[in-house]
């Protein structure tokens, strides 16, 4: 069930009304209802996936309880390993099995040894990367004694399957979300209204920005061999906005929907394209994943409290793992590697925490400097996005090579549109985001009623519905 589908348009109000008017009496009924609704939501893709998520939930629920019960270090470690093996094993099997088999066979073929691959017809369960990381955070936190495990299975299962963020995040920590399932939710007008505004703004980003960009991006990337430099540059810019609109739009909707049900989810995007360096970009992009890797991979490896050489190793580990988390393809690894490379000079010069606050323009000369910093960061990001979008590394390399043929022809694409047509839409979108960068979304505030109306009208008038696109992050 997609957030931008008509089915969800019926599902959400029904669930909302039942939740607040029928199942609002007790905490237990609220949680039970949310669990059922979440299972319906998830099972709508493929009911078989439900068994998998239920299995993962049961394992982590009992493992965490067992960890809590014992003080024996060795036993606690074994139990943690059990949880890690089961969760990462499932993730590895469903997401990476075919990739490893094919890569293994290809590697031997390169050495002249003929091998036969036997890949399985495996369907990747939607959102497996997201809920696996969410449940892992629970067992790890319990192991670290940072969290007390819950004894209530319904509570825990509701936390794992909470439908707004189940399939594409934000990846919530148990320490933040689980306590919210342990208190009865009261309806709050302001919170629900801000949730509604987030849903509308997220939907606008998805159907107006991301889906419009997708039409151009698909056409440009599939005909890149004959496209002009200008078209290819535009293709990478459009993809940057497609993936931003798509993923941050989904996150906004998830946070907004959660608020309608009385929950507060963490912010996942904070205007990343206004970053002045790549370190700032990674503090503003997919925040829930970046902080997950920081807390559960980077810091355990020593973080920045080790020698420079080990710091460099840690940075590469975290970016390569992050790249690989996105998908079973070498292109994601290169994408992660490039980001590590971008990050390295900042780390070595100890400037990776230079830009913590949101960008501000204080003078004309400052505007010039900041503009240059943002533009260069955006350019680096776009180069990395080419690898993220391309099917293979060689396609990405050829795409970049062709950009340097310096052919600035405005082309009429196979989709019967000129390549530059979308720039105006992107320009207005950036302008709106710039003037609302200190807020969560541009709707709330003065004249918010008017802004809601205008945004909904824009969703209808400028939205792209004839070529509906799946959320990109569903595949991860």
């Amino acid at each position, binding site marked *: 069930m997609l957030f931008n589908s008509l089915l969800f348009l019926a599902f959400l109000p029904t669930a909302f009304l039942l939740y607040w008017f029928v199942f609002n009496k007790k905490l237990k009924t609220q949680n039970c209802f949310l669990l059922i609704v979440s299972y319906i939501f998830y099972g709508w893709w493929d009911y078989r996936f439900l068994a998998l998520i239920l299995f993962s939930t049961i394992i982590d629920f009992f493992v965490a309880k067992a960890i809590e019960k014992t003080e024996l270090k060795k036993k606690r470690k074994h139990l943690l390993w059990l949880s890690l093996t089961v969760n990462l094993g499932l993730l590895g099997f469903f997401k990476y099995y075919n990739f490893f088999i094919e890569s293994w066979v290809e590697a031997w073929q390169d050495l002249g040894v003929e091998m036969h691959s036997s890949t399985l017809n495996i369907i990747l369960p939607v959102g497996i990367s997201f809920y696996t990381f969410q449940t892992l955070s629970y067992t790890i936190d319990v192991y670290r004694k940072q969290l007390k495990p819950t004894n209530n299975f319904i509570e825990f299962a509701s936390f794992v399957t909470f439908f707004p963020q189940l399939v594409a995040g934000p990846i919530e920590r148990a320490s933040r979300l689980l306590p919210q399932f342990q208190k009865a939710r009261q309806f709050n*007008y302001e919170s*629900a209204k801000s949730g*509604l505004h987030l849903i509308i703004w997220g939907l606008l980003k998805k159907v107006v920005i991301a889906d419009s960009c997708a039409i151009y991006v698909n056409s440009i990337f599939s005909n890149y061999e004959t496209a002009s430099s200008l078209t290819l540059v535009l293709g990478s810019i459009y993809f940057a906005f497609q993936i931003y609109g798509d993923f941050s739009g989904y996150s906004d909707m998830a946070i907004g929907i959660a608020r309608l049900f009385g929950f507060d989810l963490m912010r996942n995007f904070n205007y990343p394209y206004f970053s002045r360096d790549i370190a700032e970009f990674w503090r503003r992009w997919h925040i829930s994943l970046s902080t997950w890797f920081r807390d559960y991979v980077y810091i355990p490896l020593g973080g920045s409290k080790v020698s420079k050489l080990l710091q460099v190793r840690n940075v590469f580990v975290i970016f390569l793992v992050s790249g690989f988390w996105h998908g079973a393809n070498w292109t994601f690894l290169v994408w992660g590697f490039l980001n590590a490379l971008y990050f390295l000079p900042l780390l070595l010069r100890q400037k990776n925490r230079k830009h913590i606050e949101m960008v501000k323009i204080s003078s004309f000369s400052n505007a010039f400097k900041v503009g240059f910093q943002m533009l260069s960061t955006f350019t680096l990001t776009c180069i990395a996005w080419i690898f993220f979008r391309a099917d293979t590394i060689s396609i990405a390399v050829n795409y970049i090579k062709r950009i340097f043929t310096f052919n600035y022809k405005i082309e009429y694409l196979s989709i019967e*549109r000129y390549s530059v047509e979308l720039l105006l839409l992107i320009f207005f979108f950036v302008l709106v985001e710039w003037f609302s960068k200190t807020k969560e979304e541009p709707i709330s505030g003065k004249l918010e009623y008017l802004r809601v109306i205008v945004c909904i*009208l824009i969703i209808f*008038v*400028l*939205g792209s519905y*004839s070529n509906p696109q799946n959320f990109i992050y569903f595949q991860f």
Partner: protein
Amino acid sequence: MKRFLLYILSVSLVIVVLLFATDYLYTSVYKKNITNSKFQFVRGFKDKKINYIFLGSSRVENNINPKIITNITGKTAVNFGFQAARLKDIMLLLELIEFYNIKSEKIFIQLDYIYNMPEGNSHIMEYQLIPFVNENKALNTFFQNKKDDFFISKMPFLRYALYDNKQGIRNITSNIFKKSNLFTEYNGYCPKEGSVLNTTYALPKKLIEKNKIFDSMRTFVKNKNLNVTFFCAPIRKDTEHLNYISQLSDKISNFKDLSLVLKDELLFFDNLHLNNNGATKFSKLILD
């Protein structure tokens, strides 16, 4: 909660009103313009009298130049051919000719392999019909069996949203600023240039036995007392199963088989379409 529900309700009401207004605005722009789509061009002949009307698929649109016919005969002619049109589309156009009160002396309908396709319709034409879906009964009935019919005909603006790539904001802008199209210059004819000689095409081997849509077309023609002639436009001689056209000729009483009147391959764009030179020659021949 009450406050929140009222907030949603008031926003929804304003949106519905605005959607009606936007729908009206879009439809007005489409109704006012007669040059942006072929269907707008057809509508532009409302209450007019034309001597000869040509109906059919691209094998009419690309093959018959009405201006040449007018030059030779001194009679007005118009090409109402649509890309990928099927029998259902032709039937609809016949009904619309009646509805729009377009008077004619004779209607020529091009038939070929489309006789074997009683189902289906031209999506190119369908997109162009969207703004006018509520204009008359014929169009309304045409959309009734579509899966999005409810949204297309009943919900304000949703037809423009669902078909945004064809009838959305981009096309509205084009309707406001673009003044002419190729078919308006040639009375509905769209020329093709050049020849692609290495193409192949196979007509069906056999005519289908029953064709309800064709039967209802004949009944309609009879009831409305329309003067209709069926014909088949030229087909390149290397096309397979040319015998199919003879079967068509045997089946339909007032059918003119012109499929082999042009022999020169260089007059063809491909197996089924003439290029501009071929269309010029055929337009001179057709009234003989």
